């Protein structure tokens, strides 16, 4: 627990240094939200630099949606402060300014089944007070047909409704885009198209806050990830940096097996889950250099060293407390 906290704090400080001198697009300062005795999120500290793509990962119920609602001002923090694009979201006028530059794609948009897509997009564009300059481009990229936009949304498939939801959040070319599980209901082609659009959005300098529980999506798209667990940020770091902190999985085959080899492997610093099948050994190592030095001195026939996937990182942080300590 102490290590997790210090990692999170270190990452936070690193992020602060990284964005030093420029206004962060998102700044959460010691934000907590409490409902009676239940603390939905606790002491969140997070800064997202302008132009950054941050993946916000967590299992269901971890506090992702609560955090997003705090960001957007739908919920008021019990403690702490939220700033978007330099605007204090607790101040109504400043919050309006922030929202005029914001795009939001909610997980459940509750689109009116009687309304047509075109009508909804027009109405929301008027409320945004920014022209929907990117609407046609988004519609083309997501392959929304014009007849889909003219039909009541109750008659559309879930995927098509989600595409309309994406268009409403991005059509006015926002400076900060917050997406909550945006790929829900999309087919693989539409997901590809969305990722292409998000890369373009990133390329023009917009900030993206991408909440998801799909690890591969976050890994593909994001510079950094914030991992939330039980309402607390478990880690905030670059995916590559998180990987370096993780153990590597080593699979090694020796020309012969002797008890000395097993003893030497077992004595490696940071080794765990050492298993053997015939001449093939598998283990996790936290000290790659020591492992390489040992292997160089042994009769190795074949070796494979795999970097940890984001899933490994995710599981490390979300494994139950007792398993992590074990």
């Amino acid at each position: 627990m102490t290590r997790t906290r210090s990692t999170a704090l270190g990452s936070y400080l690193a992020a602060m240094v990284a964005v030093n001198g420029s206004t962060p697009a998102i700044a959460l300062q010691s934000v907590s939200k409490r409902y009676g005795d239940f603390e939905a999120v606790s002491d969140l500290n997070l800064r997202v630099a302008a132009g950054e793509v941050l993946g916000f990962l967590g299992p269901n119920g971890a506090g992702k949606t609560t955090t997003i609602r705090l960001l957007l001002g739908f919920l008021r923090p019990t403690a702490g402060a939220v700033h978007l694009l330099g605007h204090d979201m607790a101040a109504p006028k400043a919050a309006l300014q922030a929202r005029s530059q914001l795009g939001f794609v909610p997980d459940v948009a509750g689109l009116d089944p009687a309304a047509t897509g075109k009508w909804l997009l027009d109405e929301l564009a008027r409320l945004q007070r920014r022209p929907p300059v990117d609407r046609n481009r988004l519609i083309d990229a997501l392959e929304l047909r014009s007849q889909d936009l003219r039909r009541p949304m109750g008659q559309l498939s879930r995927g098509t409704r989600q595409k309309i939801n994406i268009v409403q959040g991005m059509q006015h070319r926002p400076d900060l885009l917050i997406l909550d599980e945006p790929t829900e209901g999309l087919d693989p082609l539409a997901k590809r198209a969305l990722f292409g659009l998000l890369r373009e959005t990133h390329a023009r300098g917009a900030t993206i806050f991408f909440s998801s529980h799909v690890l591969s999506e976050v890994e593909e798209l994001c510079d950094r990830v914030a991992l939330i667990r039980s309402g607390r940020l478990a880690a905030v770091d670059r995916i590559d940096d998180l990987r370096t902190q993780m153990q590597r999985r080593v699979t090694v085959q020796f020309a012969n097996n002797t008890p000395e080899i097993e003893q030497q492997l077992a004595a490696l610093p940071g080794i765990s889950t050492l298993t053997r099948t015939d001449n093939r050994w598998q283990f996790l190592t936290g000290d790659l250099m020591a492992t390489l030095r040992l292997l160089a001195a042994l009769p190795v026939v074949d070796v494979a060293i795999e970097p940890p996937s984001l899933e490994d990182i995710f599981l490390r942080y979300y494994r139950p407390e007792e398993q992590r300590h074990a």
Partner: protein
Amino acid sequence: MHEAGDVWLIFRSTLRRKRMSLFWFALSVAAFHWLVAVSFPAIGGMEAVTSVVRTFPEGLRTLLKLAPNLQAGFGVQDYLAFTWIHPLFIGLGAAFVVSRASDGLTGEIERGSIYLVLSRPVQRWTFVLGKALEMTLGAGVVGLTAWIGLAVGVTALPYDLPLPNYLLAAAMAWLLFAALGGGAFLIASFFSRTSIGGALAIAWTLISFVLDVIPLIANSSLAWLNPWHHYFPQEIVATGRVDPFGVIVLLGWLLGGVGAAVWIFARRDLA
């Protein structure tokens, strides 16, 4: 300036989405008032109606807000005025405003559609006002179409009836529904579940109605606070006048209820 535009946009968008529901409410009350008028001869005319009404015990007359002294006569004019307090009409009117209030606030949160609007530079109070405006206008349409139904229906009757007085009664019905809607908005502003907000708003309309027919409460010094206490369609039809104080109280409920709903909604968590 932007805020007024937002109120208008939210009002217009809500009206457009709810137009079919408004149409059916309006058609129902119009058909009901038309039916009551045209069926008057079929139920036996004046004599039959008077003889039936005279058998009502005093408590029931109070409940139905009938003329206190039936010996003074209960004419076709009173009979038709009775349609404005008929349970079907007031039930439909109250259901309309309660459904608008609970759907407009709690329903939007429950469906998640409010997040699309309020993630934009829109102030929460403009959202509530836009919804309340649609409810108020809708209640007016319900009152007006009821009067149109009655006006069309009485053309079939051989009586000279004071239609402008019925229009005043319709206007008072509008104010009553709007006042009940103000209370319903206030209740809905606290909740995020339509089932709870709607149930409490229905309870508010029913309890306030019942309180106004309990003599101990209806005659107390606080009775004037009850919206139902100022709704006497028969008196309006008979005199062609509305009580200005009643109008003020009903407007007070509308403005006060919506104002309080705005205040609460602007300060609460939306989840």
